[in-house]
């Protein structure tokens, strides 16, 4: 679902960084923190207020992995595919999530609940394999636990 963009909020973000294009990345991080992704109207506002070409905005938005141009689900599942997790079965975990959710990596379920993504190391390698759902870190996950993790979040109240 596309978010309704409050341009006042965007302007506040821009102002808080002194409207200095050097802070384009932190500004985009702040905007993404609001909407879970970078809505087009917000990007347009950025180029307008910072007086930089839109290509520079979209170049940055597409280069860095943390930015998304598509809306994300309510729960963002990050399966760690760093080396430590890879050796302890991360590919099987990622496969299980794809199978159980019926989506590919970087896809979002139709009900808008889950987005599946992979990440290169969450810095909790001693707990490998690791899965993060929004802010919760799940350590020592195995492929049979995947279903339970999904069900636990799906069952949460809105």
């Amino acid at each position, binding site marked *: 679902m596309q978010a309704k963009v409050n341009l006042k909020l965007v302007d506040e973000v821009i102002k808080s960084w002194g409207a200095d294009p050097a802070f*384009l990345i932190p500004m985009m991080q702040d905007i993404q923190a609001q909407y879970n992704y970078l809505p087009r109207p917000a990007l347009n506002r950025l180029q307008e207020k910072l007086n930089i070409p839109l290509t520079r905005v979209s170049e940055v938005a597409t280069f860095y992995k*943390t930015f998304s141009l598509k809306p994300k689900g309510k729960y963002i599942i990050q399966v760690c595919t760093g*080396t430590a997790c890879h*050796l302890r079965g991360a590919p099987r975990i990622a496969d299980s999530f794809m199978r159980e959710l019926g989506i590919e990596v970087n896809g979002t379920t139709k009900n808008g609940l889950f987005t599946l993504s992979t990440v290169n190391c969450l810095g909790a390698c001693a*707990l490998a394999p690791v899965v993060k759902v929004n802010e919760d*870190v799940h*350590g020592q996950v195995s492929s*049979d636990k995947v279903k339970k993790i999904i069900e636990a979040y799906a069952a949460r109240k809105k």
Partner: protein
Amino acid sequence: MKINSLADLESVKSKALAASAAMEKTVIVCGGTGCLSYGSAELASALERKIKDRKLNAKVMLKMSGCHGFCERGPIVVIEPDKIYYQRVGRRDKEKAAEELVETTLVQGKVVESFLYSDPVTKERMIDYYKIPFYAKQKRIALRNSGHINPADIDDYIATGGYAALVKALAMKPEAVIEEIKKSNLRGRGGGGYPTGRKWESTRKAEGPVKYIICNGDEGDPGAFMDRSIMEGDPHTVLEGMVIAAYAIAKGKAPAHGFIYVRHEYPLAVKNLTKAIEQAREHGLLGKNILNSGFDFDLRINRGGGAFVCGESSALMRSLEGRVGEPRAKYVHATEKGLWDQPTNLNNVETYACLPEIIVKGADWFASIGTKGSKGTKVFSLVGKVNNTGLVEVPMGIPLREIVFDIGGGIRKGKKFKAVQTGGPSGGVIPDSMIDLPVDFDELTRVGSMMGSGGLIVMDEEDCMVDVAYYFVKFLEEESCGKCVPCREGLRRMRQIFDRITTGNGNPDDMVMLEELCTAMKLGSLCGLGQTAANPVMSTINYFRSEYEAHIKDKKCPAGVCKALIAYMIDPESCTGCQLCVKNCPSGAIKGVKKKPHTIDKEICIKCGVCYDVCKFDSVKRK
């Protein structure tokens, strides 16, 4: 309160020490990322309540610390001054665990047996923190405070001697500080191992209206987390190191500004650093007129954008400028033209964390540890198939065997050791025949690997070397910024070759082609990412050629990893017929009745590996 002198610092220190000396015991609950995910925050609040209920507040101090490195065993709780080391405390039931700990240890003064570390092989239980094999052979410099102090409390850092190095350095001439670091022979911990003192000297010499001091906390190696632990567990050390660097490098009227570039995935590091910066400013240890010396330096935090290449120094600087993180050619020296084309010094987190100790204890002390070319210690992220995984800091030159077998406790489940991979995507594998290699910068490079940031991944007989190389090639293909052709196209071609080899479509020319691509990329790539991308491939080909041949000629994956080349089956000897796999198989491919060996129908099996994960008897085999 502002600290203006050594006397002020001493008074803060003695006050803090007196406060803890007034307590009979200190209970330290680990608040690092690993332990938090096991619920250590809830454990701490349960402990706080119980301590209050038992009216122990006046005798017992409770605090949260950073990571101890042994996250796998979390939540970790340490009781001082007794050095009691508790692990896996209350994984299931926090209330009950807190009750037990308070009653048994704090009230009755006895240890709780079930919380003690037990050796995975000998089953011996141990009480003393420093006698546990995981810690016994470590020597902690960069990690000296993590796990011991409360990172949110500057007084706790000062109590352990924090900021004394800064006081000492500011009383020295900047040139003398550089001399000291040069004499210590400290080499950068971020990957390349460039001598830190030399880098500082060049940045000091360079002329410019302003100088920048950057801390690289991007930690891109997927499988290493030492920088994270330091930033989270001992943020003031990083700040102190950076102020010392700034003081040594600044010259004349040109002001110095600092940046800490923190990896996007590390929110707790950002939080703890932010707090530390505020406290340091309040205490006059950052900002204007530091320690009343007339020296000004302040810094800010930038969060990374999740691009591995931004760990490379010139790409990182472009990213700080708000641009796409593409590296620059190396003939432009950052020490002269770095961030915004001004003289810039960039060091890694662990490098900065070593500095205060070097200043306080002296260059000779530091240089007395380690080997001829590599002084001091190095933190390794020991992960993979070892029994004890975590962060370990060891003297340079320690034999690989001691890391894997003594500290790491050997290979899990009694499997056979096969190789270690060091240096992340820039490094290579070291086969079991080289297990006695002394680990330092030069030795690792000599055998075709690299120190990198200190990732040390242990692999056993069930790990496929072709898959490992494939893994890094895929990683690098995704992370290549695409600026230069050898890296962008070379990695894509290599990945395509690995696609073929790992699916049974490889041909004998593929290995020749891989070797040629490696050579071309090494010579032709612009930055370290492309130049070192050959290491994972070449080292696996050199040491495990027969494994490649098995994939190419026999269409087999001897380790049982490459999905297209294996089949799952159940060993009828060891299968107990427990039905666990039958229940969990998502495609209904497993047949069998209770207490009779089960079988997998190859036609239906989708090779998802769930049965392999759930089997408690290790009866599911991949062949």
